[in-house]
């Protein structure tokens, strides 16, 4: 059998087997030092090189170029993670194509060899290939033109600031709170002491669980519709709103914020946001309209207890109420 054909099969069949059988093994939920997608890619490249060397296939330079180009395409399209936007993908592939061209034109010998099948196709020595290429390409150009001209509309992309800069003070129910120095008055103890306590059952026994129970009650009468029973922002109405409700489980929300910041956000809601946070779309109510100050603090206490996060604090002072 033709060695070039064998080399081609080694590439195509190898890729199919690797991608469908071996790739899933290398992309487990827990990424390790060995079991990750980049190691998988290196193994695939090593497989190609070693197989070609051992079988002494020496594929023609045009085919080698095709392999190199294909490997780049495969890497950017399927391996690189997280996936890149298509504009970036096009940019990378242009660079990669130039690199591939440099590879084939590294010396006149390889370049001539690379050109040979192309020239033969053009002048008609490969008659069949010539007919296919000369008819297929104008049709492709026609389709590409059609697709470019055909009007298509995508909804505009809107950017917003997730954690806007807080004001120095906020006025809730007639009282002014400086955000820097305000603490949760219901944080009467270290929350970790209550990991094995039960809301409701222990509410009579200790003050802390009493506040958690009260906060949870408010949460599950008002907040869970959007922020969800799991506080993950996937409540029963969450799919309706854009921006989607905050996910408190995520380390990027309440875990990295001060309680006073959250007090401000809860009290003032969407309408209290600055313009860069698109206040016109936020469904977050200004909770001062529905809850009193104590209820707001208790909800915040509950959110930390439920998620297990600790509020961010500045300085060394404790968080006594």
């Amino acid at each position: 059998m033709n060695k070039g054909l064998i080399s081609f099969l080694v590439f195509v069949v190898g890729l199919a087997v690797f991608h469908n059988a071996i790739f899933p093994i290398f992309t487990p939920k827990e990424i390790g030092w060995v079991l990750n997608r980049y190691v998988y890619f290196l193994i695939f490249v090593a497989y190609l090189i070693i197989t070609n060397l051992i079988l002494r296939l020496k594929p023609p330079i045009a085919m080698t170029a095709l392999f190199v180009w294909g490997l780049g395409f495969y890497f950017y399209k399927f391996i690189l993670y997280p996936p890149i936007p298509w504009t970036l993908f096009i940019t990378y592939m242009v660079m990669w194509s130039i690199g591939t061209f440099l590879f084939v034109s590294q010396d006149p010998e390889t370049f001539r060899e690379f050109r040979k099948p192309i020239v033969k196709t053009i002048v008609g020595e490969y008659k069949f290939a010539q007919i296919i290429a000369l008819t297929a390409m104008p049709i492709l150009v026609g389709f590409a033109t059609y697709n470019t001209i055909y009007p298509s509309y995508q909804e505009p992309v809107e950017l917003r600031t997730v954690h806007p800069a807080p004001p120095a003070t906020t006025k809730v129910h007639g009282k002014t709170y400086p955000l820097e120095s305000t603490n949760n008055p219901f944080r009467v103890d270290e929350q970790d002491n209550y990991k094995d306590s039960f809301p409701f059952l222990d509410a009579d026994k200790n003050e802390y669980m009493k506040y958690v129970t009260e906060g949870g009650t408010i949460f599950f009468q008002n907040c869970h519709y959007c922020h969800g029973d799991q506080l993950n922002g996937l409540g029963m109405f969450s799919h309706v709103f854009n921006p989607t409700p905050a996910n408190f489980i995520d380390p990027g929300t309440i875990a990295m914020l001060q309680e006073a910041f959250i007090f401000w956000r809860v009290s003032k809601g969407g309408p209290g946001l600055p313009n860069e946070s698109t206040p016109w779309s936020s469904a977050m109510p200004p909770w001062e309209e529905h809850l009193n100050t104590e209820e707001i603090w208790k909800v915040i206490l509950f959110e930390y207890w439920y998620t297990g996060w600790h509020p961010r604090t500045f300085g060394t002072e404790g968080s006594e109420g």
Partner: protein
Amino acid sequence: MTKNTNYIKRLIFSFLAVALIAIPTSVFAVAPDGIKKDMLETGKKVYFKRCVWCHGVEGGGDGPSADRLFTRPRNFIQGTFKIRTTDSGELPMEADLIKTVKNGLQGSAMPAWGEFLSDNEIVSVVQFVKSLVQDRDFNDIEDEGVTVQDFGTNPWGTTGPYHLGVPQADIDAGKEVFLKNKCFECHGGEGRGDGNPTMKDDWGFPIVAADWTQCWNFRGSRRDAFNPFNVVRTVSTGLNGTPMPNFKDQVTVEDRWKLAAFVNSLCPRKNIDPLTSKPIPDFLIQSVYTEGQVSPNIDDPSWQSPDTDSRIVAFPEEIKDNPKRHYIAMAGQITRGKRNFDPKTDDLWVTSRWSAEDNAVYYLVEYHLRFMSQDPEYPDAVAIQWPAKLQDLFGAEKPYFIMGDSKKPVDIWKANFLAQDYNATNAPKPDGYKLKVDVEEFVGLGFDALSAKESEGKVQVVDSIYKQGRVKIMFKRDLKTEGEFDVQIPTEKFIPVSFLQWAGRDKEKDEHMSISTWYYTILKPALPASLYYMPPIMAVVFVCFQGWLVWMTKRTRKMYDEGKMKRDELPK
């Protein structure tokens, strides 16, 4: 001692059960899955952290949230569980409860816990829930024998997520089963759950029949909305505690699958978001350019298109250029003023056309409503909300989505309507009910600062109907008008738009309503003429280029061969 004899009893029982299961029949009862006592402590911890808020301290379905939920949380005390594989009235299998906890109950507040809790925590909490059942006993192997039903297998071998490809003949046969067993008495003539407004559950709370055209809201959909198995299971086992009976004896298993195929065929195939188990909203409403006049008639062929996503099932050839139905997700307005915690509508479908000759834009707004208002004081209503001063908005800026704000007013086109000769208890009426519509236009400067426009109203409702649980209202307005607070609608521009809806039967009015977030709409221009001549021109140009390339290459070759030119030589 008793514990020991119990154990032996159970052993014998399970032994018998295994022996009997080997015989392909399901008439023999097996013991219910007992409570694993060693897991109760973990279960209690999970329950009191995660579940107690809705299901209550004693499992009575009376947690703090319960009164503000429509479809209240389950009351565990009676041992009544809806989604089971066991016979009607029986206790569920442990696996049924585990699946319920893992997948949640779609269309209700019960979320899927499968990714949130570990398997051990889920099994433990299920044990604890079983221990909350007071009126029945999972450990009672004599009186609580359960029969796990045999549902057969999917006869068409369809696969997820969309389960397409069931032969039409079987769907039609399923419709016969539907008619014969009078499913329409509760589920309505076209399955939108609009059959019976008086139903109550075992605890006396009002309850409605499932809307089959929104299968992603089926409680037992198990995050696999389009799977006909879900329907077969519910039809076979009934839903304990609700008016839904089982049809195990009236309908053969084969016919139950056909019925399921029919029920499923009514549910439009949409791309379902795996996180929320709801269809992904169509955030851009495309208004299609129409030659000549737009038909102001809902039944006109130019307005026909299925709810199904055309990327999943292509539209039939004769309507392929029709505008598609855009899915708008709705929720209760729970932000300002009087909040609406139990909205009766969560979907809205919008189709739009515009015409330059007509100088007008048409929006056909449809939504599902089981029962209409009969009270003239509280009519049903739906509205389209626009920024009133589109020209003053900069970038992504919009008015506040709940009826505007003091700086940025909104223009609200509201249609109030009552169905004529309608009674909620009427039998399904295939022709539908004519609506008496009254259009109002408002300027909104906030939910508490709404006023009727002073300028002359230009919005018309040109056609409307309430048919088989679906309201259809067609709005029309000129692109340009004189009113100070009228939105001026440009073409080829993204325009923010949102939707409001009031259910008269629930006495919704003012800010007590359902609402969507801001969407965009765009009036698409006619297809450019260059679309038809440019591609051939480019192709011909490319053919010429190819000819030149071939000619050049051949000429170079010839020059080499004749020795007029030397091939590139390697550098010495």
